[in-house]
């Protein structure tokens, strides 16, 4: 109970719970439509979803400032790739929040005659750029970790004779062109297996990176669908949104699961 009080005290945590509920409503609306439920229930669910979306916009009213502060902090990072990715990602997030605030003002009637469709598209574009940069950062960190793990493995155990054999066989059988293809395929699959195993190990040992990668991968389907680049349907979008919200709530409850910086 005490942890709920502490959780509830953070406004970001509340926003995530409402986001999870909103995407659960999206998913529920889709399944109800597929199942052919009453129009009344479907209307209630979609009204609830719209209400939660508008309230989340209200709750996000100050987030541009936070994103700009995060961008200011990210400029001082030592790693240049991380610095670039994170700063531009935070700036894009700040622009997304600014468009979101304008949309809120339009929806509540503060700004009359607002082209809501145009501003929605704009905000989703900035969100997509921010997510692409976050994914780039995740892949970069993953690559660094894989390289260091490979170096560690190479330094611990000398290279086994089996790995040098395919190279010799490839160079010796250069006269017969059919032979390298039959030898190369099992070599390729063994190499792939090893790489995948390495990838799995690295991700398993770094849960913050795994969670962030999963979260961004789930999140990216939302703007892809809304912008029409890769339409997947509201059911899939709802499921992805719900999954990423749940992962995000996990990182708030356990701060050590949050990817730093």
């Amino acid at each position, binding site marked *: 109970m005490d942890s709920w009080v502490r959780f509830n*005290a953070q406004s*970001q945590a509340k926003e995530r*719970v*409402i986001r999870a509920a909103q995407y659960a409503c999206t998913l529920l609306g889709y399944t109800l439509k597929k199942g052919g439920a009453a129009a009344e229930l479907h209307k209630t669910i979609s009204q609830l979803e719209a209400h939660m979306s508008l*309230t989340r916009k209200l709750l996000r009213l*100050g987030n541009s400032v936070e994103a700009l502060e995060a961008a200011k902090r990210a400029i001082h990072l030592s790693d240049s790739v991380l610095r670039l990715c994170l700063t531009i990602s935070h700036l894009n997030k700040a622009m997304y929040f600014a468009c979101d605030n304008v949309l809120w003002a339009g929806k*509540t009637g503060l700004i009359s005659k607002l082209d809501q469709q145009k501003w929605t598209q704009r905000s989703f574009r900035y969100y997509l750029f921010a997510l692409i940069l976050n994914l780039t950062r995740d892949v970069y960190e993953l690559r660094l970790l894989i390289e260091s793990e490979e170096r560690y493995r190479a330094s611990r155990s000398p290279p086994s004779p089996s790995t040098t054999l395919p190279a010799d066989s490839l160079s010796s059988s250069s006269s017969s062109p059919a032979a390298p293809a039959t030898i190369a395929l099992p070599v390729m699959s063994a190499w792939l297996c090893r790489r995948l195993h390495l990838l799995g190990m690295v991700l398993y040992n770094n849960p913050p990176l795994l969670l962030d990668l999963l979260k961004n991968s789930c999140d990216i389907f939302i703007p892809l669908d809304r912008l029409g680049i890769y339409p997947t349907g509201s059911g899939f979008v709802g499921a992805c949104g719900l999954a990423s919200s749940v992962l995000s709530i996990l990182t708030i409850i356990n701060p050590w699961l949050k990817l730093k910086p």
Partner: protein
Amino acid sequence: MDAVVKFTNQSQGRDRIFRATQYACALSIYLLRNNSERKDLVAKLISLEATMSAGRKLFRLGNTINSIEAAKRTMRLSDRVLGLCLTAANINRALYFICDNALWARSVGLIRDIDKERWSLNASRCYFLSLVMHLTRDVYVVLQLMAQKVRDKHFRQKMDQHVSENPEVVDVVVPQLDAFLFVLLESLKSHPAVALDTLKNICDLFIPLDRLGIYQSNAGVVGFCGLMSSLIGILTLTHPELRIKP
């Protein structure tokens, strides 16, 4: 900027800002109601107030548990009167949140067959009772402070000095009343947290008093009082030393 970010990160901080905006809108609507040129602005303010109110009801969905936890904590206080007042206040606040959650569910259409007016009145009643309990605690704390001050020899000298300095005031006003007011003001000045909390609760009290029809003021007074209490609430959040403890 950093302090602003830290403040808005607390959901209570954001809620207080939204509450201040909501009551500022209510006050502005009352002041501009007869102004025919500003009808657009009034419509926008009404829409903004409704949005803030609906949004705040959604944010408050989890606060029942907060109040129950607070009631559990205050039950264990050493001072019995304080413990009783605060526990009763927190339980009433928990009931208020339950009524508020039911009203939210009704407004989004999740529950259809509840009497909105009755639940709204019950919510106001619970809120009123919790405010009365808070005010009782404030009065108790102020009386304790005054008693403590009177016992203090140094302060008694100051009071005698005050009485001897203003003989004409003492003749006009009843001397005991003058002494009482002096002690009261000195106690409040030395403990600004108690003064602010009392002021906040008195301002807040006008809202359910108007809603329940006990003391009908108008929408302008309600808006002004709500705005004042929200601003005091923001002040106590930004300056934790101005917050009354426990």
